[in-house]
């Protein structure tokens, strides 16, 4: 299985026969086209027999005048080989549901049902997912926003349309329910949690999300790449660098743009700074929720200092707006002065972090709250294809930086630690390892940072490019005034561009702090977005929480929740 190129030769014979067409869209993207009737067999072969895990599943509307046609793609991957298997099939309106066998597909299939009107046949839980029956018309045949014939700004009248059916509550003597949300007591994003309790222990938890569904994928359709880039920063605010990186990776692959060496290093530094910031933030909240205010405030101070450093480096406390197609914007450049400041600050942060870590590990109250709380079994992780540190704390390796190296991660020396303890404490320990690796990776990058014009190819590209908006403008204006292109020129340039193109779609991926981010980007012939599927790791990992809290007491729920610290915004889209 190690060899990418004859991977297809080593598959089972009847699987090979079922594949009607196969080709490599990229070095590591193997596309298998199959008929709808073989879908179940082939997906199960990869998931059950070859132990591949699901990374994403989504539909795309390819309807022409002669009726409805949808492409459904399933993306599988494996931790020991740098290869994505993309299973591609076509349907007119229905497809077989695989949620019973691959539980990770549950939400994906419901999403396809809501947004495209495709019916997953035999789905065990066909309730609406993001188009709430309270707010969206359910009986109208054409309330399927991601279909191409749905007008992008059409809003049905706002009124109450129906009721949502919650799971059956647990019944029995002394069993009671606690309903929480969607508006929470703290400064938290909206989500609804229903606990069934018997005394203190939790018997069942049902979560309901997608309160913040904003329709990002539909808004992006028809937008230029730089317009979509500003959307990518708003998918999940604390992960804006990771999402922009994943989106740009896909766009750069499609347009065949080479990124200068120096920009690769700087992108890595920003990605790691973001990981560091998010990990420190989680660390602080875990302190806070365990009632250890002193440690929490001290860690919040450290977080604030990192954000101030971000502001010094890029002018934005979240490093927004530093990435551009083909490179880095000048506001994000790391010159010698910034390099020295960064080094100095990092060694200071590292020292303070080590003090905090020592304090936490020496505290018995913290240990008692965190150990043996929020168990997530390995089987649950594998079934739900959980990603990132949540998987690594339960003994399943999951780190895109190792499995599918991007940027310069294949040149860097770092470990991706896997623990077997499965509890909140293990997830905290994994964070500690991640924080230490982040410090070491940034130092390595700074030491090896090549000095060259960071935006060389980016600028060359921008000069010929149609998508010359956003942050590039001010910079290019001083050089020449080519950024304002007349309308006809625009189309010409775009067509020219499309002839250089090798492919119309690509996968963009990166490892965010929470886990793998997977973007599928498809451009039309004018280099505008025609389909953009965003998948935040939270979309997989939220489902873990229903299993993690069972048997714990309700007071531990905030700790279990914070130990996974998932994004509502990235999940809801």
């Amino acid at each position, binding site marked *: 299985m190690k060899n990418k190129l004859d991977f297809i030769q080593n598959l089972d014979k009847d699987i090979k026969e079922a594949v009607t067409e196969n080709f490599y869209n990229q070095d590591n993207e193997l596309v298998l086209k199959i008929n709808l009737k073989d879908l179940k067999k082939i997906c199960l072969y990869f998931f059950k027999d070859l132990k591949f895990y699901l990374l994403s599943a989504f539909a795309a509307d390819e309807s022409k005048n002669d009726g409805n046609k949808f492409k459904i793609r399933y993306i599988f991957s494996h931790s020991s080989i740098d290869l994505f298997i993309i299973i591609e099939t076509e349907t007119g309106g229905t497809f077989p549901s695989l949620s019973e066998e691959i539980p990770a597909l549950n939400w994906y299939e419901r999403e396809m049902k809501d947004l495209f009107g495709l019916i997953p046949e035999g789905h065990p839980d066909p309730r609406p997912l993001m188009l709430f029956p309270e*707010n969206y018309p359910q009986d109208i045949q054409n309330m399927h926003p991601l279909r191409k014939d749905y007008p992008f700004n059409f809003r049905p009248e*706002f009124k109450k349309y129906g009721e949502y059916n919650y799971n059956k509550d647990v019944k029995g003597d002394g069993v009671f329910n606690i309903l929480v949300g*969607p508006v929470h007591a703290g*400064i938290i994003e909206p989500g609804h949690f229903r606990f069934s309790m018997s005394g203190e222990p939790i018997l069942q938890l049902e979560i309901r999300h997608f309160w*913040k569904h904003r329709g990002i994928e539909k808004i992006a359709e028809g937008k230029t790449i730089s317009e979509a880039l500003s959307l990518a920063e708003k998918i999940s605010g604390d992960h804006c660098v990771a999402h922009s990186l994943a989106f740009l990776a896909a766009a750069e692959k499609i347009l065949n743009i080479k990124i200068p060496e120096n920009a690769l290093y700087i992108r890595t530094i920003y990605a790691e700074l973001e990981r560091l910031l998010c990990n420190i*933030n989680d660390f602080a909240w875990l302190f806070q929720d365990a009632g250890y205010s002193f440690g929490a405030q001290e860690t919040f101070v450290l977080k604030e200092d990192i954000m101030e450093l971000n502001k010094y480096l890029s002018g934005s406390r979240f490093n927004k707006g530093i990435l551009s197609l083909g490179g880095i914007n000048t506001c994000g450049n790391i010159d010698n002065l910034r390099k020295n400041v960064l080094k100095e600050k990092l060694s200071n942060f590292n020292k303070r972090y080590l*003090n905090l870590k020592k304090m936490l590990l020496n505290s018995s109250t913290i240990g008692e709250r965190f150990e043996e709380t929020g168990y997530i079994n390995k089987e649950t992780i594998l079934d739900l294809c959980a990603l990132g540190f949540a998987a690594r704390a339960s003994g399943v390796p999951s780190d895109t930086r190792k499995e599918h190296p991007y940027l310069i991660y294949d040149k860097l020396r770092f470990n991706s630690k896997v623990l077997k303890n499965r509890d909140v404490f293990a997830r905290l320990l994994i964070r500690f390892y991640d924080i230490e690796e982040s410090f070491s990776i940034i130092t390595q990058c700074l030491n090896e940072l090549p000095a060259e014009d960071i935006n060389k190819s980016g600028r060359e590209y921008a000069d010929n490019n149609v998508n010359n908006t956003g942050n590039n403008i001010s910079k290019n204006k001083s050089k020449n005034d080519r950024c304002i292109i007349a309308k006809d020129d625009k189309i010409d340039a775009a067509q020219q561009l499309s002839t250089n193109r090798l492919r119309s779609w690509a996968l963009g991926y990166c490892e965010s702090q929470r886990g793998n981010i997977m973007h599928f980007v498809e451009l039309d012939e004018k280099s505008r977005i025609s389909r953009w599927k965003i998948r935040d790791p939270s979309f997989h990992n939220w489902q873990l929480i229903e299993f993690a809290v069972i048997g714990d007491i309700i007071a531990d729920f905030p700790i279990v929740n914070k130990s996974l610290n998932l994004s509502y*915004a990235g999940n809801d889209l």
Partner: protein
Amino acid sequence: MFNIIKTRIKEGIKTKKINIEDIKKDNIVIFNEELKNKLLNKSKNKNFTNNISVRVVDSGSCNACLHEMSALTNPYYDMERFGFKFVAAPKHADVLMVAGCVARNMYSALLKTYENVPYPKFVVAIGDCAMNGGVFKDSYATLGGIQDKLTVDILIKGCPPEPIDILAGLLLAFGK
């Protein structure tokens, strides 16, 4: 732990100073007539001066605004020194702080929270999306910005607005 305490005693933490006169006013828009008059006449604010309870609702933000709001409680900004505090229930609140565009699914929850804040109440909208929906304004899944749905008294611009701006906005409107 002693190391940390030692450094803190030695160095301390500098809370950010804010002077009302120095506040950059480009990022703060005040719509409420009463508050505006107060600023013009430099008269004292009758509404709960220096004792404001804030309730936060996220109606469709990307969570960057929330990070900045929760930063207000850290030792650098420490908004409690001015008498502002975050409360857990709308019934206890004087100010409703809303972030993000109005997602269709959140609208009824937002309205319910708003109705439960006792009078006199103020709405502070945080961030560019809150203004008119920002990039999400045309989406099928949103109902525009908070401005379209509730009477907004103060708007703090930025994507996300920095904590110092949020604090400045609150001070400008509700400070002494």
